[in-house]
């Protein structure tokens, strides 16, 4: 699948944003601190920026509002609806924290639930597609949710450290989420590498009983929408390296840095280490999301010899 920059940025930013919103909604950051007020703002900006980025790949973005209508059947529509619904408790929580230095339990917990459901809807857009076999597994939503948790705890840790607040809980949470997320992701990748293709050129043409089917001629010499959208391929040797880079930058380096934060507390060094952990994790996540699209093979390529 073609790794569109707008969608990679959207899923990465909104995952981080909803994760941070969830950390705030659980009341893990002291609402009286200036850094927590800033964290509320950053969470909303990441979510809003991500959503705006996702509209960039539309052919007719002026009609994007119509995407809210088909929540009965479409995960994309459900995601849009849940994103907007979730803004309500998130904005109430942000208002209470920014202007009144208060943490409100009910909007907080509603925000956590909304963030989780929205990330789940995003992941189900991909996981529900049987035509992309690598995505069509319950491990896909599990990875998205755990990565959102990891990114949110890391960002929460950064803001807590910057404001001189409590860091140990968020640090432990970060390590736990990073471990769980990458365990799930490695299982996801193993699943992709070991699966037997559901559809083959033989089943796609129905000619399997005659023999082995090989593409002789494409419909046209040049690429078309299908081959440029669905026919993206990444060399295996590069994919393996990128997967290692994403694991190191997105999992191992942040985890080690978080241990450093635990040791140094809310000092200047702690803040710097937490900031580096967030940065490294974000780079790792962008790589992971790029691979998520680039490595996935679409069933239509059975007709295009790919």
């Amino acid at each position, binding site marked *: 699948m073609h790794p569109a920059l707008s969608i990679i940025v959207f899923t990465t930013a909104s995952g981080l944003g909803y994760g941070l919103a969830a950390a705030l909604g659980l009341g893990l950051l002291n609402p009286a601190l200036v850094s927590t007020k800033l964290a509320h703002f950053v969470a909303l900006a990441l979510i809003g920026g991500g959503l705006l980025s996702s509209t960039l790949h539309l052919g007719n973005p002026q009609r994007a509002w*119509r995407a809210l209508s088909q929540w009965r059947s479409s995960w994309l529509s459900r995601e849009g609806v849940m994103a907007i619904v979730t803004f309500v408790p998130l904005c109430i929580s942000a208002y209470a924290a920014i202007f009144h230095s208060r943490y409100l339990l009910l909007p907080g917990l509603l925000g956590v639930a909304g963030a989780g459901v929205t990330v789940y809807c995003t992941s189900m857009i991909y996981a529900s597609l049987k035509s992309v076999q690598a995505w069509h597994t319950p491990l896909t939503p599990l990875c998205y949710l755990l990565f959102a948790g990891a990114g949110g705890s890391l960002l929460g840790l950064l803001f807590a450290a910057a404001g001189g607040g409590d860091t140990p809980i968020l640090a432990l949470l970060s390590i736990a989420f990073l471990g769980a997320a990458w365990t799930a992701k490695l299982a996801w990748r193993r699943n992709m590498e070991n699966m037997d293709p559901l559809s083959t050129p033989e089943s796609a043409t129905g*000619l399997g009983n005659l023999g082995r089917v090989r*593409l002789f001629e494409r419909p046209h010499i040049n690429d078309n929408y299908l081959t440029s959208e669905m026919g993206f391929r990444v060399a295996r040797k590069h994919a393996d390296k990128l997967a290692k880079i994403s694991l190191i930058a997105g999992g191992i380096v942040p985890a080690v840095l978080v241990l450093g934060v635990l040791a140094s507390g809310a000092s200047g060094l702690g803040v710097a280490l937490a900031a580096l952990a967030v940065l490294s994790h974000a780079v790792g996540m962008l790589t992971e999301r790029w691979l998520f699209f680039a490595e996935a093979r679409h069933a*239509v390529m059975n007709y295009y010899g790919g």
Partner: protein
Amino acid sequence: MTCLPSNPTPKKLGLVIDLDVCVGCHACVVSCKEWNTGGYGAALSDQDPYGADVSGTFLNRIHSFEVLPEGGEVAAERGEARLIHFPKSCLHCEDAPCVTVCPTGASYKRADDGIVLVDEDMCIGCGLCAWACPYGAREMDLAAGVMKKCTLCIDRIYNETIEEVDRVPSCVRTCPTNARHFGDLADPNSAVSIMVAERGGMDLMPEQGTKPVNKYLPPRPRLPLAAAAAGREDTSGATGFFAWLDGMLDRI
């Protein structure tokens, strides 16, 4: 409304494509593009049409496949490989995944005849339906920013202002070898249903669970050219004058 109609629809209009007969001439591709660029919805645009990197939106494309039997050999025209031309357009699936994923309600399946259509005024061009379709039946028009797909020439088949013989999809009307047939696959007595029953019409990628309406008729069995030529050497079946001639010629 992107929920699917109660299955099955009373009529299941679709195509039956005969892989034994198709010669891969691409006439249906051209006639489809010609009819549909001026018909239902936005025109089928081309990008860089006179340049080196030409591409465009098509609702029907012909692929060609080489099929090699187990242990077979590819050796020019005397080999055992078969070349099969393979037209592909929307299969108007009963369980169409492209419909249910649509966030806007632009993509829908008609409850009365089962045709899958896109309401282009509602389409936001997100491309998710094209991702959901395992067959590659949907292509985004890059000029209009909306999803295009086979309409089964809905502006022909119900069009009472054109002659009755023309009230079939453009590709069917055009096919010079009669490889394409149009009809109601829900009616067991329709010509297309009888054809499917007699020839063992098949679904593409049944494992995807889409229940396509369009059916493909498999190529008939065939002897490789080499075997057919070898058969001509055997004259033992000759009778009468030819048997006498066979014997005389052998003696010379």
